């Protein structure tokens, strides 16, 4: 009987993003939570010297593992930064083109990579449910060269029409739409990472395209979890599921309290085949 591995959708996302982090690039990472954990996992496993900045103005911190429970308190997450500045400074560094990748989570996304973190249902004035707002995502998604977005593959998240466009993807998808709006040239969403699939964007139509899936899912299953139909790559790659080692690091050193990573959908896979068994 072969070994199994159990993890949450958030843990899957963290591992997948960690695989994408490149040591010679600079990352602008949302406040806290899974995007930051993905960078920390990458730093801990593959790319120890990778630089990232956070909204409050800490530049290229170097936290010591294991991190304390919840990572609360700036002193932990800003530890051994090369500089402590402020929000206007790091936003300006992004405006100047120093940030290769923005790393963000989102609530609702459309086929052009525009996304919502403001409200769902109802109207702007009387929303069914109000969320936090654009936060730091608008400046990050506008000014970093490429944006990596993480969310869950669910029909209510991959929608035909956003309830509110908090932050820009490729806007209406027409050529030069971002530039015409006044956004920095040649920027935009790059990949959308979910627990079971990764999407890129078509260079011409700017539409989301399925480029990779976890070993256990089919195209049909992916499409069934989306309101709109994405383009499909000629060759849809298979994603590498989380490894036992990565999960151990997340749970023991990055989010020991489990407050971020232990929620959501649980997956159990066969370690060898990568197929889902529960």
């Amino acid at each position, binding site marked *: 009987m072969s070994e199994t591995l159990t993890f949450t959708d958030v843990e899957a996302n963290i591992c997948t993003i960690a695989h994408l982090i490149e040591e010679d690039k600079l990352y602008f990472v949302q*406040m806290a939570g899974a995007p930051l954990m993905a960078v920390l996992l990458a730093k801990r496993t593959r790319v120890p010297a990778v630089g990232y900045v*956070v*909204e*409050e*103005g*800490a530049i290229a911190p170097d936290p010591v593992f294991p991190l304390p429970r*919840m990572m*609360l*308190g*700036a*002193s*932990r997450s*800003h*530890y*051994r*930064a090369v500089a*402590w*500045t*402020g*929000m*206007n400074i790091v*936003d300006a560094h992004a*405006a100047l083109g120093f940030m290769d990748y923005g790393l963000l989570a989102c609530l609702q996304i459309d086929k052009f990579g*525009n996304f919502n973190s*403001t409200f769902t249902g109802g109207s*702007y004035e*009387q*929303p069914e*449910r*109000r*969320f*936090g*707002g*654009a*936060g*730091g*995502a*608008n*400046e990050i998604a*506008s*000014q970093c060269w490429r944006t990596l977005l993480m969310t869950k593959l669910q029909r209510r998240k991959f929608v035909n029409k*956003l309830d*509110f*466009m*908090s*932050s*820009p993807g490729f*806007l209406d998808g027409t050529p030069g*739409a*971002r530039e*015409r*709006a*006044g*956004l*920095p040239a040649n920027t935009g969403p790059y990949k959308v990472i979910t627990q079971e699939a990764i999407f890129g964007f078509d260079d011409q139509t700017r539409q989301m395209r399925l480029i990779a899936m976890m070993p256990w899912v089919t195209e049909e299953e992916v499409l069934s979890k989306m309101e709109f139909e994405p383009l499909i790559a000629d060759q849809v790659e298979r994603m590498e599921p989380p490894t036992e080692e990565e999960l151990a690091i997340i749970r023991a050193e990055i989010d020991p309290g489990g407050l971020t990573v232990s929620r959501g959908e649980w997956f159990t896979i066969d370690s060898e085949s990568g197929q889902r068994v529960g």
Partner: protein
Amino acid sequence: MEVLASGIGEYRQPDPDGFREYVRTHKERRLVSKVMTEQEAVSRFVQDGDYLAYDQNVAVRGPTSLFREIIRQRKKNLWIAAKFTWTDASMLVAGGCVSKIDVGWMETGKVINEAIQKGEIKLIEWSNGALAYRHLAGALGVPFLPMRYLVGTDTFTQSGAKVIEDPYTGQRICLVPALNPDVSIIHVHQCDVYGNARVMGAGVAPMEIAMSSMKLILSTEEIIDQQAIRRQPQRTTIPYYLVDAVVVAPFGSYPGSTPGLYGADIEHWLEFAGAQMQGKTDEYLEKWVFSVASHEEMLDKRVGAKKLLQLRQAETIREGYYE
């Protein structure tokens, strides 16, 4: 002046000359002590209807003791800037103090959702960076600043930003109006009695907020000697002439952390979260705000020395702050 696009969000019309006139007639240029109680500072410098800004949030170095005093004094109709915050807005809304919120990011539980539904608060959309940048405009004494984002989104539409043709490049450029709060509250690690203050750590925008505000209240973990300030001038974040009041407030960010000094009280937050979910924020506020006369009394009677000592021990990092 042709404006190519305008958000519909409400904003205070920038008035650099009005700000200057206020400064000329109200701000103290002499080196005089501004130390006073939180009661006096909030009573003198926070008026109903004021635009209130602050640096950081209830999790990290927020001016939380002053938030509680504002609630205690039942200030009304404040317009607040909730950028890069957590339950700050929920707490002030639960206290009945707020009528408008400029949103960057804030926790939006039951309190905020119900207040929106009842029409008790009005939201205007910005982003964390846009609000920090509007403070920068206010700090520079200019009516607006150009920037490269917000445009293209619904956030722009619900903001007070505008788009014009840049006279230098001919391209579209987004402008945001200066934010000059009536009053700001900032919690600092150290200051002297005159208000020369040090903020340690990555700080969001303490200097910009201090410069952009008409009235400025500091709460401080400790008062240090003026000569200590003068011996290390580079560490000063805020010079004295920007400051109207200095309130001594050790553990002033409680239940949040002040980096380098003490950790956060996670249990306290769970208590607030629970109170919010059960619709019992009135009980929470009664316990933590109204039933005690001051921050000092709250620390003494509700938190207790044992907890304070634990929180102090929980912060093991001093490097970069005090070392």
